[in-house]
């Protein structure tokens, strides 16, 4: 009884082809053109057979200007697809998208299916989903979408350290899935250019700062420091900067640390704080004795970045690079 898995029954409204119309149009042809008639008849029949959303095996090739309807509960995939110009028709938790992801903005046509890990089953049943692009976190909810093909694309570090290839590979895979490899290739090239531009801009603004450490506060005392297998590594290395870490992280790309551990960082490392940061936590941090001694913002360099989805794809990388190039750094070598 306790099960999130749904058994899905074929219950779509089947668009009945108006077979009679097809027959009439065929029978009106003259007898002399028997071969042509037969050919036309056959093609007409196959054209009349509209694919129902449930019968994917018999799917006819879509003409080029028809989009594949992708449902993508994973934010990284959804964001990258949107940045490529091919937004999914549905993703989850859209109401907190702006708070956690920021860019790119989802089009208003994208439907919100509720909590990502527990999407709204009856809403999904009403959507014409052609394909599901997610990864193993969302496998338990795959049956909600019915018999559509489900592909697993994950933007994550394959080894101990995340590299540029870890982000270009899945992007190209996405391009293959949507039958638009050129779109993906163009996007990869554009992203590369954008990141290089951002790196140049950052270098121009703050030439003295070479090392960064990235944290996100859970509360005033506990924070996560992002390590080499998170997306900050390829972003910063592409911009010719160094990511400083305090230890080996977990498989999600961070290591939980306390405020006092920040003292282990060198004086010339610039601290970047990722939003969202609630006003209460902000006030508590200011009150903290340890923070005051560390003197970030005065003797040490620090800056605050707008939200970036840590488990995002190429679009997160580009967004992060852009935010880095425009960030306001205070204190230390920045002033």
């Amino acid at each position, binding site marked *: *009884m*306790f099960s*999130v898995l*749904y058994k899905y029954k074929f219950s779509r409204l089947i668009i009945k082809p108006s077979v009679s119309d097809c027959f009439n149009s065929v029978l009106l042809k003259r007898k002399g053109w028997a071969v042509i008639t037969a050919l036309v008849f056959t093609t007409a029949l196959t054209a009349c057979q509209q694919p129902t959303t449930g019968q994917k095996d018999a799917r006819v090739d879509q003409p080029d200007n028809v989009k594949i309807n992708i449902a993508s509960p994973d934010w990284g995939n959804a964001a990258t697809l949107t940045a490529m110009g091919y937004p999914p028709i549905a993703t989850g938790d859209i*109401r907190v998208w702006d708070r956690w992801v920021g860019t790119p903005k989802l089009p208003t046509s994208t439907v919100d299916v509720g909590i990502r890990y527990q999407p709204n089953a009856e809403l999904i049943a*009403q959507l014409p989903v052609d394909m599901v692009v997610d990864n193993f976190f969302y496998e338990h909810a795959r049956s909600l979408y019915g018999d559509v093909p489900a592909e697993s694309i994950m933007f994550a570090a394959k080894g101990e350290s995340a590299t540029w290839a870890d982000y270009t590979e899945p992007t190209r895979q996405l391009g293959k899935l949507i039958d638009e490899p050129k779109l993906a290739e163009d996007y990869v090239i554009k992203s590369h250019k954008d990141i290089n531009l951002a790196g140049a801009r950052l270098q121009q603004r703050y030439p003295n700062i070479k090392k960064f450490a990235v944290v996100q506060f859970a*509360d005033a005392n506990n924070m996560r420091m992002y390590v080499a297998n998170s997306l900050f590594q390829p972003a910063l290395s592409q911009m010719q900067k160094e990511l400083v870490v305090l230890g080996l992280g977990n498989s999600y790309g961070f290591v939980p640390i306390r*405020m006092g551990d920040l003292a282990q960082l060198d004086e010339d490392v610039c601290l970047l704080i990722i939003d969202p940061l609630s006003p*209460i936590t902000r006030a508590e941090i200011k009150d903290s004795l340890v923070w005051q001694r*560390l003197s970030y913002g005065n003797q040490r360099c620090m800056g605050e970045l707008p939200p970036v989805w840590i488990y995002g794809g190429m679009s997160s990388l580009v967004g992060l690079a852009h935010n880095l190039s425009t960030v306001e750094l205070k204190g230390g070598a920045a002033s």
Partner: protein
Amino acid sequence: MNTHIDNHPQHLNANNTNNIANPMTSLSTSQSVELSKQSPKTRQQSSGPPPTPPQPQNVSSFINSWRLWAMVITLILLSLWSSWALIAQEWTRPISELFLPSSQLDIASMATQLHLVATSIVALLAGGLLGVVSILLQQLVKNPLASDTTLGVGVGAQLAMLIVSLFLPSLAIYGGVYVAFVGAIISMGLVFALSAPSRFNPLILILAGLVVNILLAAVANVLVLFFAERSNGMLSWAAGFLAQNSWSTSLMLAITTIAMTAVCLPLLKPLTLMSLDDMQAKRLGVPINGIRATVVLIVAIVTALVVSEVGLIGFIGLGAASLVNALGVSSISKRLVAAFGLGALLLWLTSNVALLLEPILSMQIPAGAMTGILGAPLIIWLILRQRRERIETVIPTLTGKNTPVAYWRWGLGVVVMIVLACLFVQDVNGWGVSTDWAITEQYRLPRSLSAAATGLMLAVAGVLLQTLTRNPMASPEVLGVSSGAALGVILGFLLLPSLGFSAGAGTLLMSGLSGAIAVLLLIIWLARRVSSGYLLLVGIGIAAMMDGVMHMVKLSGDPRLEAMLSWLSGTTYSAQPSTVWYLIGIALVLFALSLLFIKPLRVLGLGTGVARTLGVAVTPVTIALLALVAALSTASTLAVGPLSFIGLMVPHLATSLGAVRLERQLPLAALLGAGVMVLADWIGRYVIFPYELPAGTVAAIIGGAYFLWLIRKVPIAVSR
């Protein structure tokens, strides 16, 4: 049967009021009586204790008090050892340097120093303050089970802080204490208002505290779900992390302690006088109401201070106060000091253990969650100590006129409601009338039907329990069985994969069942030893334990557990067309079984003595009824998750509509329970579509609001 109480219980009640009026003396008398008698089972307290001369201390009482003192000393030793272990783990420099002024240490050492010393100081002071608050509350309501947790003081403060933090964050930062104070006063006022008609009958008081706790927690839950964008960071504050970053909290709590000592000194004498009897104290010139109001204010302020600084810490106050009671300290000043010391030690020990466990579990553990987990054994121990106090009375809170009930109308109403719930829906295009039968059959109908079945089962369980324990505030979740089932499922989900089993639907069912059966066995074991009224408190403890485990689950951040969290709030998300019919079948079978029990239950409702004379086998029937209640609540928990309030309020709703006699109340309550759950489920599903409010939360809010409205209808001449 609830209204036709003859004179017998009123007589009991009058004597019980006397009983309650002398908590200290009655406790010590009961203790000394218990200690000196060899056969405790024959001791009947139901006629009220005669004024007992102080019993001479004999050997067994000496041994018993020695045992208690040994426990206190063990507590002290454990606290010292744990803090030593913590220091050894974290602090690599000489111990003396731990107490240097912060500015002389380098940053890393200072951070560790704050982490160790400041946290310990905060733990000591906060625990002590909470202990003192609980003792004051116990003096106030003359009930050995009162505390800041059971009277819902802290949860009101926390909810107020949550509301303000969501909408007016600047006020939360600078004016946190005042906000928390207002919240604390409001929730305390609610609890007192709920229990005032019954003259602060101890059980009603505790259960009123439970009701307020559930209601306010549900409101907090709804707010967090509604405003998910803004509630980032709320969770860790609410969990009760004690770890400190600066000395400001320690300073604030130290000032509070000193101020509180200064304020309490002049109150000692009036409080001592008031502990005797209200009338005597009045004659001696004590302004009773003024003193009471002052105590309430002090309690609210101090709790607000503690909650706004460190978050909600539960059960420390109750533990300290119960230890003080057990040690038999009678003078009020000594009680306050002892409570401070014991509360300080308890919280310090808990905080040290939480910090020691951190590297082992590699996640931050809030002390507030740990106290919840320790609360259940504490309450059970407390109940076993308290079992001398037999609270046999029943106070009817709601009377209704005995009118004929047209069942078919109510049945039709429920069916119509289900149909409407399937028709008026939200879909891709917003609100509208649904015409798609396929989707309705697949998704909407099973959920509504499952809600109806669960509502039916819980309402029936509530009626059975309330009649059995002759307590209008009993309900299955208070019994703890649904919490036990939920705990079983959580532990199964977490531990089974590491043991090699896959955490699928079948195995989770088994683990949930075993959790429920474990709680049921505990209850049956306790049922033979304590009055059935006190069983209800076991549920509070187990629910608190589940709360603590849930907090740890939320904080671990595992995304798969997030899906479980909504189940824990009670949702019909996992209803499927194939299994919902089994659920309905089980519901109908159990309902039929309960109908069979109506006759013996009516007789049991007259009192165990009367029932025995009338030939009803009391214990087997009681155990069978408890098993039935457990089966009902387990089935509904496994289907929908633990739900609150349906079992509590629907029987009263049925009574108020005219079904006063049990034969009428049971079926009507079943129908009403089904209807209310269908409504709650529908609201939960569509109010923030496509996100969902758990049906349990909505039902808790509807139930809580209903209970507040209920107070107005309480008859005045209830228990004179």
